[in-house]
């Protein structure tokens, strides 16, 4: 076993593979930093280019692309409040306020260090617990997936930031809009009005970029000046690294959330970064500072993102089930190069081990390259808003257009930008909308699959995993009441 790891290590660090690692990292950082594009785009583009490569080189290139594009998403989130990828939506919420306070360098270093730490923790955990997770994942069915999505959806109350009714309305709206398109269960078109375009549903990229990036362009245009009030870039890279090192618990918490979200197919980074953000907020001693530039608001989503992409490798490599669309592309690359993923993945010579070593090296590569270039990225804050708004708009337009090559996506993005602007202006908790939108279809399809499987609602209560989650959900819901009663009881007994 150890011999195989060593052999895999030697394959991964051979000259050509290190070069591919660096190329993948640079390319991934650029693509990740461009709003609207992301890991999907980078991997889809790289896939045909890997035809002529050695299998190990191809997979290492793709792993580097994936890891650095995921981290790269935080750069645009922090500097221009435009989520570079769907997985960096939550990073905007505190990353950009930090940049506005002139602490872009601090935010970028926290993002780099926590992404690296999250990826590293994810990698270690995956190596240790993969065999157990494979066994567990094989036992999970639609009722469990439904309950997990429901638990994630229950975070709406946290995302509402004290405006529960408004938060629930927006979450519901997000869920409702996610139903546009063909029903995955029956194939029936819903709210499509006969339009072929709408049959594929409303694209997440257009919604996320419009709601979080382009809406910000309206605000930047109204504000004028520059992003940072001061031209001085407060906060050093070292300060950011120390901030992360001093919070091992927060890093571990976020990384674990990310890994779990990664292991469960279909959840992925878009859910992981939002969920970990709110878990961190809940755990924080000063939750009221979240959304106003709390460094932990950058730390948690970034650590979970990179933990998640490593976690997604588990179902992909060991079950042959891609956890998310980038993993589907990785799976395609593996199959293309003659590696058939499955439970016997580790019994296929040194190559599978080289892939795991490649994943580890990718974490180091984006951390080194990302941190050495962060100070140049931070200079964006000095650009006048008059120029920056047009730049953001152009990038948002190309980002929304690039994925499906249709200008209708750009139109949809503008509509959601206006909606996002109104929500921000009147202080509605707009994060709830995206949470509902991401989880809506997942909740619905797993609910129906569960019923099709057993034809009775009791399936949610008779399966141990699902029942455990119902109890957990109930505890979460009634926790304020339970804790209040418990405190009263303890006080009465004390007296």
């Amino acid at each position, binding site marked *: 076993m150890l011999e195989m790891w060593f052999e895999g290590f030697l394959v991964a660090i051979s000259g050509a593979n290190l070069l591919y690692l660096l190329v993948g990292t640079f390319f991934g950082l650029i693509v990740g930093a461009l709003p609207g594009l992301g890991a999907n785009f980078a991997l889809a583009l790289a896939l045909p280019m890997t035809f002529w490569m050695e299998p190990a080189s191809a997979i290492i290139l793709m792993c580097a692309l994936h890891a650095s594009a995921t981290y790269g998403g935080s750069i645009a989130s922090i500097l221009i409040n435009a989520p570079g990828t769907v997985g960096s939506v939550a990073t905007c919420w505190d990353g950009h306020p930090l940049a506005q306070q002139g602490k872009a360098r601090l935010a970028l270093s926290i993002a780099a260090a926590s992404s690296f730490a999250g990826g590293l923790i994810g990698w270690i955990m995956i190596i240790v617990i993969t065999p157990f997770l494979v066994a567990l994942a094989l036992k999970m069915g639609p009722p469990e997936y439904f309950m997990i999505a429901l638990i994630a959806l229950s975070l709406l109350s946290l995302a509402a930031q004290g405006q529960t009714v408004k938060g629930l309305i927006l979450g519901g709206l997000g869920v409702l809009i996610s*139903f546009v398109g063909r029903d995955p269960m029956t194939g029936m078109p819903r709210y499509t009005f006969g339009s072929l375009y709408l049959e594929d549903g409303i694209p997440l990229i257009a919604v996320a970029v419009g709601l979080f990036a382009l809406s910000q362009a309206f605000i930047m245009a109204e504000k004028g000046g520059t992003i940072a009030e001061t031209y001085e870039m407060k906060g050093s890279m070292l300060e950011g690294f120390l901030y992360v090192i001093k919070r091992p618990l927060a890093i571990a918490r976020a990384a674990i959330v990310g890994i779990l979200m990664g292991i469960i197919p279909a959840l992925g980074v878009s859910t992981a970064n939002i969920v970990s953000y709110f878990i961190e907020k809940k755990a924080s001693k000063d939750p009221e500072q979240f959304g106003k530039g709390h460094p932990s608001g950058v730390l948690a989503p970034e650590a979970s993102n990179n933990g998640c992409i490593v976690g997604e490798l588990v179902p992909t490599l060991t079950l042959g089930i891609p956890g998310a669309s980038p993993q589907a592309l990785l799976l395609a690359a593996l199959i293309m190069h003659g590696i058939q993923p499955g439970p016997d993945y580790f019994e296929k010579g040194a190559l599978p081990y080289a892939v795991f070593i490649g994943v580890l090296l990718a974490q180091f590569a984006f951390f080194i390259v990302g941190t050495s270039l962060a100070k140049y990225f931070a200079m964006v804050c000095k650009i*006048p808003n*008059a120029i920056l708004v047009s730049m953001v708009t152009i990038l948002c337009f190309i980002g929304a257009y690039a994925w499906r090559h249709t200008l209708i996506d750009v139109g949809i993005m503008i509509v959601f930008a206006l909606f996002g602007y109104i929500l921000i202006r009147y202080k509605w908790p707009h994060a709830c909308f995206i949470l509902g939108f991401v989880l809506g279809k997942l909740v619905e399809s797993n609910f129906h699959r569960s019923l099709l499987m057993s034809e009775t609602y009791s399936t949610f209560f008779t399966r141990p995993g699902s029942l455990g989650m119902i109890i957990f959900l109930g505890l979460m819901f009634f926790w304020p009441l339970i804790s209040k009663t418990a405190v009263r009881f303890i006080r009465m007994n004390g007296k």
Partner: protein
Amino acid sequence: MMKKFTLTLENIMIITVIFLVSASLYLSFDFMRMSALFPKLVSITILALFGILIVMKLCSREKGNEPESNGAVTCQGEDDLKPATTDRRLHWSLSLLLMTVYLALIFLLGFGLSTIIYGLAFPYIAGYRKHKIIYPYALAMAVIIIMVFGKFFQIPLPEGLIFELIMPE
């Protein structure tokens, strides 16, 4: 005393959303049973929540303690930032108009030319007058977009209706 109802952007949004959700509920009656369950459930819940929100708003209006929202631009972490005075501040409707015009121009003239026009026009309208920066910026932006997305990433950028009419295939 009850305050007069004012048609703010927020109220327009609420009315529009209520209308759209009601329409979605109406449309869901035509769906198959399985496809209709969640849309109906979610639509009814949203409408009920809007009912609660409106009652809450009316109650706070009657008490006269509704927080005054003048629509001042604030976003996460931005409350304490003073508005800058160096450039002209654009009203959201003007930004929206410029974006819509940009989209229409892409459709007509293609990505390259319309990006140059938008890159020149927006900073100028926003009061930024450093011509030595604006011109190279607009040109560079268009060239970068075309080179990176069009040539390197092989994304078929829109060439524009006019170009297609002049040079069909």
